């Protein structure tokens, strides 16, 4: 291997690849294109992956929601079409019976699923917004970013059924002046005064929540709208290592039992599993990564084959030169390594240039998509992938170089010299 670090070897290689510059450049572009495609594709796939993850970052991945609907089967003397109502006491039953549940947050809302939104008034300004009755624990399942100075609903608010609320960015814009700090001010929700304790920052994450939502303590909501023990729906987060789909099934089975629903009635209890949706999206991103890997490697392969092809032609053209070299004392081994090194060198140069170019394009795309509502963030290609691609190229370059190298050696010097 010593010859690899011999400046003479490299001089020979530069000499021979430098003599047909146009052809060398075009050949290099073939491989360069391959690795470029590979880098850009896998970087873009990673960017999408990151983008999806960013969109879901404020929601616990292994979370689910469950709500009650009307029955579709008669059971225990109850008729079909009975409306089921989830109750607060379901919480402790579910928590006790399903140990995989980490958090469970009962929630209520006015103004989303039928029923008009609450009328909100502040001084001369008014608007209609959805009002949620929440426990502090619901932020464990779906993170709420609260602007500085503010806070979310806390346990004391719940215990005292305090009349405090957290408003949305849009609510703030529509009810308050620009330079006004809403914290500590009062608004009227359906004619009851509430003190604003926080403003939440809206992060789009699917679902029905919006930037104008108002959150009040669950206990206050109950008094305000006289909902008693009723719960609109449960937001449930399972432990990280739990199987959410299993938890979802168990939750529904238990709720059916509590509310006297036929266990086979699939309509009575509705649910939505974020984990499943998330897994599907992650699967999509993974598929994309895999596809870019396949396409990239195939393109690299095509480029490397191009190099092999060109070197074959080059060996044919250089038959005489190689014959002279051998007459002057080049051993077959030296001739072979000359050709293989040319191949590897061309592949490597192309590879490194392709990687640099690909990285440049990725960072450009990143710049353009910044601030756009598009799930794309921080497109990167993991270093092992890059090194792996380079390694593949060296191996392929060597293998493909073997063909012209063998051909160069198989020509006898006498035949090479005789050729005019």
């Amino acid at each position, binding site marked *: 291997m010593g010859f690899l670090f011999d*400046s*003479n070897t490299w*001089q*020979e290689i530069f*000499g*021979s690849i*430098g*003599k047909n510059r146009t052809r060398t450049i075009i050949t290099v572009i073939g491989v360069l294109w391959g690795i470029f495609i590979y880098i850009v594709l896998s970087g873009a796939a990673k960017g999408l992956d990151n983008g999806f993850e960013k969109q879901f970052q404020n929601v616990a991945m292994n979370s689910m929601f469950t709500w009650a609907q009307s029955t579709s089967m008669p059971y225990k003397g109850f008729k079909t079409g009975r409306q089921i109502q989830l109750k607060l006491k379901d919480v402790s039953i579910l928590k006790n019976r399903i140990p995989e549940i980490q958090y469970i947050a009962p929630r209520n809302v006015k103004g989303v699923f039928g029923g008009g939104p609450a009328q909100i008034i502040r001084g001369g300004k008014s608007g209609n917004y959805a009002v949620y009755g929440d426990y502090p624990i619901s932020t464990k399942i779906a993170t709420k970013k609260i602007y500085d100075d503010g806070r979310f609903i806390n346990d004391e608010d719940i215990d005292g059924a305090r009349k405090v609320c957290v408003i949305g960015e849009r609510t703030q814009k529509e009810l308050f002046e620009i330079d006004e700090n809403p914290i500590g001010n009062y608004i009227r929700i359906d004619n009851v005064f509430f003190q604003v304790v926080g403003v939440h920052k809206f992060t789009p994450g699917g679902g029905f929540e919006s930037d104008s939502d108002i959150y009040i303590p669950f206990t206050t909501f109950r008094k305000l709208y006289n909902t008693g023990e009723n719960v609109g729906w449960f937001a449930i987060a399972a432990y990280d290592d739990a199987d959410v789909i299993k938890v979802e099934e168990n939750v529904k089975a238990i709720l059916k039992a509590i509310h006297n629903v036929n266990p086979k009635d699939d309509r009575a209890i509705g649910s939505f599993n974020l984990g499943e949706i998330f897994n599907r999206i992650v699967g999509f991103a993974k598929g994309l990564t895999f596809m870019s890997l396949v396409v990239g490697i195939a393109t690299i392969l095509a480029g490397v084959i191009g190099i092999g092809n060109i070197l074959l032609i080059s060996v044919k053209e250089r038959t*005489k*030169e190689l*014959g*002279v*070299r*051998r*007459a*002057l*004392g*080049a*051993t*077959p*081994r*030296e001739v072979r390594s000359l050709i293989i090194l040319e191949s590897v060198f061309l592949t490597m140069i192309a590879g490194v240039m392709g990687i640099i170019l690909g990285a440049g394009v990725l960072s450009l795309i990143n710049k353009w998509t910044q601030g756009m509502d598009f799930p794309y963030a921080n497109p990167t290609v993991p270093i092992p992938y890059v090194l792996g691609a380079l390694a593949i190229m060296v191996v392929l370059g060597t293998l493909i170089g073997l063909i012209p190298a063998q051909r160069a*050696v198989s020509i*006898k*010097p*006498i035949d090479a*010299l005789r050729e*005019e």
Partner: protein
Amino acid sequence: MIEIKNLHKSYKMGSNSLHVLKGINFSVEEGELVAIMGSSGSGKSTLLNILGMLDVLDEGSYTLDGVPIKNLNETKAAQYRNKFLGFVFQSFNLINYKSAMENVALPLYYQKVGRKERQEKALKYLEQVGLREWADHLPSELSGGQKQRVAIARAMAAEPKVLLADEPTGALDSTTSYEVMDLIQKINDAGNTILIVTHEPDIADMCKRIVHLKDGVIVEDKKITQIRASQYV
């Protein structure tokens, strides 16, 4: 220096076999300047190729500087060629993308001589053939005679035991031919053994010995009085 006994060589052409050399016995002493003559098809190039280890013999023996040349693999042959022989070809066979100096230095590269020393030696030999100022020129920028002189410098650079020249003047006009022969004679005067394959009688007359080949056998082998090429230059 060269000892050949009962050398046979035939080529297979499909089902036929062409017997080219039919028992050559031939020896060359150190310092000789031998012309191998013969019409085309007489086997003179084949003989030179075997002497140059570019081809293998079928039968007989070949000893070069006391070393029996037999059963060589390509690697060994390459090493022997590099150590023992210098080649001069009719069509010069310079590498067209290398400068004159790099061409001369090439056999030294395969002798693993360092770069600095290689260049110094190459320049020294270019100086000997009178092309020191042309060291950085590409072969395409040289005339035919200059190219052949570069080729001779290249053959000499490895300091071979024997210089083998295959029609060295075949592609040159007569004035240039005599210049090249003058150079060859001077190299011979310095004590180098040289074999020249030629079909030109005037070139052969400038050697010290003429070997005539006809149909694969030596028909004549005579020592002659050398005609100096310098008188024509």
